[in-house]
Structures are given as C-alpha cells and as structure tokens.
C-alpha cells in the first residue's frame, strides 16, 4: 500500500468500474453501487471520487457514445489501470490475511 491512499468509498467506486467494464460511466456506476449498497448516492459524490482517482492514476477515461436520453451529451467511460488492479489486489490480500489471522475462538466469542 505504502503511500497510496484509497478511501473506503473510493475503493467501492473503483471496484464498480472494474466490474462494469465497458458500461462504466457515471450513471451506471451510481446505479450499480446504489443497488448493491441499498442506499441513494449523489452524482456529486460519485463524480468527485472518480476525478480524484483519475488524478491519482487509478483510472483512465475517454468519451463514449452520446445518447438522446443524455440530451446529446457524450458519456465518459472509465477504465481501471493496472496500477489500480495491483492496489486492489494488495488490499484484498491484506484483508484476507487479517481474516485468516483472526482466531476462531475470538470469532465465536464475539458471536456469544
């Protein structure tokens, strides 16, 4: 991880982009996350996270097609960089490692 800072929400957005592939543009990402998180998200929060991560080098973007539904405005399709994949993988491994390190007893104790 080192210097890279990836917030919790940013990580979710990044994962959504990775999952949506060619469909990864603002509204679709919002829809995907809303359905998974089961809560309303604002365009502002999604967009600001996207721009931040683009600046940090986790994402690249390019304009996609324009639809009538969008008032003739083009979509911006986001794609994850290999660096993002590396960081996501690292985070997953760290989490997995921590899960494994958690003693079973403690887990059960917590259940009581």
């Amino acid at each position: 991880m080192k210097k890279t800072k990836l917030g919790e929400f940013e990580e979710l957005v990044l994962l959504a982009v990775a999952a949506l592939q060619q469909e990864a543009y603002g509204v679709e990402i919002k829809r995907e996350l809303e359905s998974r998180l089961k809560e309303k998200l604002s365009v502002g929060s999604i967009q600001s996270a996207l721009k931040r991560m683009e600046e940090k080098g986790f994402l690249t973007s390019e304009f996609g097609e324009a639809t009538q539904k969008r008032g003739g405005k083009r979509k911006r399709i986001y794609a994850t960089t290999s660096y993002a994949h590396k960081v996501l993988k690292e985070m997953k491994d760290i989490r997995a490692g921590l899960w494994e390190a958690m003693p079973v007893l403690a887990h059960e104790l917590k259940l009581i």
Partner: protein
Amino acid sequence: MSGYADIHPPEWPLKFLRFFLNPKYLEEIEGDLEEIFQENIERYSPGKARRLYAYETLKLIRPNLLKKFMQPANFNHYPMYKNYIKIAWRNLLKKKAYSFINISGLGLGIASCFLIFLFVQHELSYDNYHENGERIYRITHGSRSTGDAAKDAKANPFWVWGNAPVGPALKDYFPEIDKIVQFSGRSDILLTHGDKTYQEDGVFFMDSTAFDVFNWKFITGDARTALAAPYSIVLTQSAAKKYFGDEEAYGKILKGSESSGRSAAGDYVVTGVIEDIPNNSHFHFNVLISLNTFRKSRPEIFENWGYVDFYTYFLGNEQFNERSFQQKIPDFITKNIGDSDSKYTIALESLKDVYLRTNAHRQPGETGSLSNIYIFSIIGLFILIIAMINFMNLSTARSMERAKEVGIRKSIGAAQGSLVLQFLGESILIVFLAMLLAAGVVVVALPFMSGLTGKEFTLTPLLTWQAPLLAFALIIIIGILAGFYPAFVLSGFKPVAVLKGIMHNSGGGGYLRRALVVFQFSLSIALITGTIIVYTQMDHLQNRDLGFDKEQMLIVDYNYDEIVNYYSESLKNTLEASQAISSVAFSRSVPGSYFPNAGTTIENADGEMKMMVQPIFQVGIDFVNHFNLELVAGRSYSRLYPSDSTSALVLNEAAAKQYGYTNPADIVGKKFDQWGRKGEVIGVVKDFNYISLHRNIEPLTLPFDPYSSRYMSVKINPENMDKTIKEVNEVWSKLVPHRPFLYSFLDNDFNQQYKSDLMFKQLFTVFACLAIFIACLGLLGLATYTAELRTKEIGIRKVLGADMRTIILLLSSDFIKLVLIAIIIAIPVSWYVMKEWLAGFAYRMEMQAWIFVVAGLIAVLIAGFTISFQSIKSAVMNPVSSLRNE
C-alpha cells in the same frame, strides 16, 4: 421513453452548474444529470424530477469539481518569480561589497531625505495648531511713502510692534473682525513664591480675549475670565511646577516685581494654568499677565497712537476678506488719525505667514527662513540623487556579469519586458533593504538632529496609517528611478552576441557613467565649497572687530530694578576697587540686546530743527570708556560738567549722517530735543555694531540717564574668572540682596543672534559630508570594478616592467580627470548660489579664489584617497596570481 423528450430539466440549476463546474467535466456531468432526470420522470412526477435535479446540482459543489476561480487558468508564473528573487538574492550575497555600497549609500540618502523632511515639516507646521488659524491675522505698523504697501514695506520695514489704540479702533471700524487680542512686548518680571524667586523673561501682558483667538489649552481655570482682572496671572504648566512643585497653583499668590514701563509691583493671583506652549509657535512665553494690569498702571498709554509697545492680533469672522480689508485701510487711517502729515499706516499679515514669510521687524518671537527650507530640501534631493547614481553606475558597470544570464533567459524565450521587470524588481529589493537601513538611521539620528537644531523632532509625522503606504510607494518610485536605466541596458543585450562572447564592456554606457560621476562630484564639490564659505562667513561674523569690547565682559541683568540703580554708584566703587575688575558701567541696553527707538529733534546741516527716529541706548556716565568706543569728535560725558546729566547728548557717526553732517565734528554743539530733554550734542562716537552683522549699523543716540539702566557690565581680567565672578556675586548679595544675581557674558549673548546661522552651518556641514561620503562610496565601487577588469592588463604591464607608480597613475588618472571636470562645473554654480546666501549679511566675507582652490583640492584628495585603496591593491598584486589562470 421518447414520450418524455419534451420535458426538460429546469433552467436555473443548469445555468448555475455551467457557472461553477470545471468546464473539463461539464459535458459528462451534464449528460449524467440529464440521464438521471429522464429516469426520474418515468418514476416520479416532473416536479419531483426537477427538484431532484436541482438537489443533485447543489451536491456537485465539491472542491475538486469546481472551476479554478482563484488562479489564472492559463499559466502559473510563480516559479519564475521565485527564480527572480532567488537570483536577485544570490547576486546580493555574491557581491557583498557592491551590495554594501548600494544599500548603505541609498540608505543614508533616504535617511537624509527623511530627516530633512522632518525638519521642513516642522518649519512648515508653525502655528498650525490654532483651530481658527486661517482666520487669525495680525497688524504691522509702518510709514507710507509711496502709497503702495508692498513697496513701502521694502523701503522701510514695517514693525509688528506698535501702538495700543489701533486695537479698539479696528474693532469699531471693521465689522468683519470677530475678536481682537493685544499684548505687550516681551517683558521681564521677578516672581516670588515663598523662598522661590525667579526672573521670568518670557512674559506678555495679554488681553482676556487671548484664548478666543489662540488655542492654548487650559488645565485649570476659566479661559474667559482668566486674564480679565488686573493682577491676574496665567502660568504654563512648567512655570507652575517651578514655583509650586506638585501643589495646585490655581488661586495662589505670586509676588511680582515692577515690570519697567508696564506695571507696578504687586501680588498676582494665579487664575489659570495652561499647557506648555507648543514647540512650533512663533512666539513663546511661560507667564501671561492680564493686560489690565498694564492698563491700571499706565492708562494714558492706551490712548496714545505714538507709544509703541503692543502686538495686535485678531480673529476675522466668516465674512473676512483680506483684499477688502486692505482696501479699507487708507480710510481707516484717515478716520482715526486726523493729522494729514502723518505717514503712519498699517498692514495685514496672516498667521500662516508670520513664521516664514514675514519681513517685518520687532517680532514677538523667532522667525524661520524659507530659503533655508529650500536649501535643505535641495540638499536632501542631491544626496538621494548621488546615491541613485551610485546604483546606476555600479549596475551598468557590472552588466557584463549578468550578460550571460540575460542571453540564456532570452534564448529560452524571455521577452525584454519581463527582463526589465526582473531587473527593476532587483533594484526595488535593494531599495527596500536601504529603506530598512534608513528607518534605523533616522531613529538613531533624530536626537542628534534635535540637538543640532535646538528643535524637538518626533517621529509622529512619519507614524501615521499612510506611512507604510508612503514607504511602499517611495520604495517603488526610487527603485524604478534608480533601476530604470540599468534594467534597459541589461535587458537590451542581444543573446547571440552575448553567448558568442563578442560583447565589449558597454562602450556607450561608459560615457553616461562618466557623465554621472561628473554630475555626482559637481554636486559634492558645490556642497564642499558651500561648507567652506559658510564656515568662513561665520568665523568672519564672530571674529570681526565690532567697535566695542565684548571679551571678558560680564553682564548682570537686573531688569531696571530701582533699588539696584539707587545703589549703582556704590556697586561701581566697591567692584572697581578689586584688582580683578578693570571697570564697571550701567546702561539700559548692551550690544546685542533689546533697545527702544526714540524720536530726536536736532538742528540739521541746513539749520532747521528736524525730527528723526533712531534707536536709543540710555547709558551711565562712563559707557563710552567702558566699552572702549572710539570718539571721533567732541567729548564723552564727564563728571566735570554737572549739566551733562540733563542737557548733553552723545550719538554715533550714522546718526550724524542722518541729520546731514558728513563731517561728524560739525554736529557737536548743535541743539537737540529728545524725550523732553533739551541741550547740545557734545560728542560723536565711531559706529559700532550694536546689532547683528546681518544688518548695517543704524543711527544711535546714547543719552546720559543712569537711572533707566537695566544692565551692569563688569569688565574683568581674564585670569581667575571664576574667582572674580564669585567676588562680584558677593558684593552684589551684600548691597542688593533682594535681586538674584543673573549674569552672562557679552560675547555669548551677542553670538546668540547667530543661533540660527550656526544651526544652518552645522546642518549644512553634516549633509555636505554625507553627500561626499556617498559619492566616494560610488567611486570606490567603480574603481574596484575597473581594477578587477584590468587585472590581466596590470599583470602583463608588471611583467613587462611597469613600476607601482605607473600603475597607480594609470588606474587613478581616469577618475581624477572626471573630478577635475566636476570642479570646473561646480565652481561657477557654487559661486553664484553662495553669493545669494551671503546677500543676507550686511557684513560679508570676500569670496576669494583660495576657497575654490581648497574645495577642489579637497575633492581631488578625497577622490584620490578613495581610489588609491584599490589601485595600490592592484598595483602590488603579484602578476603570477593574476596571469596564471590562462
């Protein structure tokens, strides 16, 4: 879906969005919002969809999505400016000697300007504390000869001091006069409280309207009534402290002596204490006594248009108009003075002119000099210019050092404009540092300045909210003035030429540089010449034979004390018995002090009895011998002629001439009539300078009247003066113990008249020295630089056998030539200017050639000495070290 296409998102959130959102993101986000809007229309009502749209828009206000409002959108100059500052700083540190010369020179220059500014400000601030100052005027008195007031005043100076009845007459005649205040001439009075007795010499008898006209602040007492009743007295704070310490002075009694010719002795009631009179007042006092005290003692004077002892000031009301007042003066005079032969007239002076722009004589206090203000302002400017020239010369001379930098900057795309800005910025940085230095210098030098001028200076005029702005503006202006030319020279280099290395060291700039050095040195030499002339003239004034003995002359001032005059014979006999005292005399006046004027009728050369006015010194019997005055005709008063005490008169040569006698012997034996006394002129003394040497000797009469004396003068032997003074004091306290023994020396008293000239001399010297010092700093810098450039040349010359002398000459001759040219320019200029200055003295030194020779020599020596440092250093340098680099 297409069914909803005619429903659009609301207008204003969209406009707002376009306003704040970073344009890079606009298309994408606008599209997103529209897509969501369309979905929401399917799900909710159009209204709710619109509301949601607006809500989403507001939630888009996030820092990283905003337009860059604060920064120019295109390009960030910050690193470039940072680089400029870094380079400027490095240059300062790299060439410490040049930076020192520049900063200290400019710093001293700015500091001198500030100090001179404070001085000028102080001179201009006189009497500006009176609230109604612009409506306060005073009357001057004079005689009309041509009908044109301005011409009259020039031919025959008007007096501020005049008669009393003019005051009430003015008030009656001119409705536009609001309040009149009259006060007596400066008086002396002995005041006693308990065991404390002091002779107060700053006393005026003043009308009760004084505080309506002038703004002197009361601490205790009522301004309206304080000076109403006879024998009421108002003290300044420091006078009150002197008599009463910390006690309340109000309502206390001060025993006052007689004030000769003005009031009888009596007990004065303190009716008020006022703050000390501000330093910048054109007259000062410690004590005010009600004018009614004077009126009670001598009421007849207040009706007499011929008796001169009053100053008349008034406050005009809103309708007051100077011109219409002046037009009405002739009518006013005719109405009040019935006599058509009388030439008496009055003139008007505004309060704002009374300190600097008055020509009238007999002022109530000191006056300033407008020409001094001009002279010092010009000197201040000169010093600053000299310092700026240093900066220009050093920057252009060293331009080669920066040439490569300029070449590189230009080849990577710097425009000349931005380079000019860079170099101007550098000069502004240097001026800023100089300003800091100047602030320090001003703070340190201010007490000295006060000591030099005898005036209190404070930093208050500089400590206002405008001050930082002003300082900032000054930094910019001086920076631009000094840096303008170097910036253009430096930024004008052609990059190709510079980088190829085919630049010669600014040949054209060399001429300008030389011209500037010549200019600098011309100014300095003019200032040196001025200093020498001021010194010689002051020396001339102080050492001139005045025609009377002023050395070892002890003067005791007893202020016309009748008892002392009664004892004068025994004082004289007792004192003259002493070995250490050669003679003692009593007189109403001594040279250099106050004297009245009298109208004297004497038979003139044509045999008519003619009345003329001239100063009068009432003297004791042996005044003439005592002061060693030379008799040119007739005899002096003598005990052998008892009638001398009532019917004899001695006068001076000028007076004899006044009555038309070219040969003074002819006036002896002629009839005279003066102040109710008739008799014959018995003798004529040679003219002696009883007033300052600014003025010519005027006619003077010396009537014999021992009982109007004010001063005892004691001529003592130069050995053991302290012991002799003690001896005189003992005799004094034995015979007239009630009167304090106040003594001074005649030569000191007489030289008091040159106080302002001495101040001028000292200030002038200080600033002239500063100017030449700064010019030399610049010369040193230039010499150092030229020597550096010629290191190799000198090395080669030495190897080929040049000796030290040749090399020193080689390096110095260039500059010495410039100084010689400067001398040629400076001499006529300073000759002319100093001639004007000397015109202010009736007795002036000759401006002889030696003065200019000496000034030139001093300049050459100072310049030569300055350069020699560097040239000797280069001359003794081992050629190996200068040549091995190649």
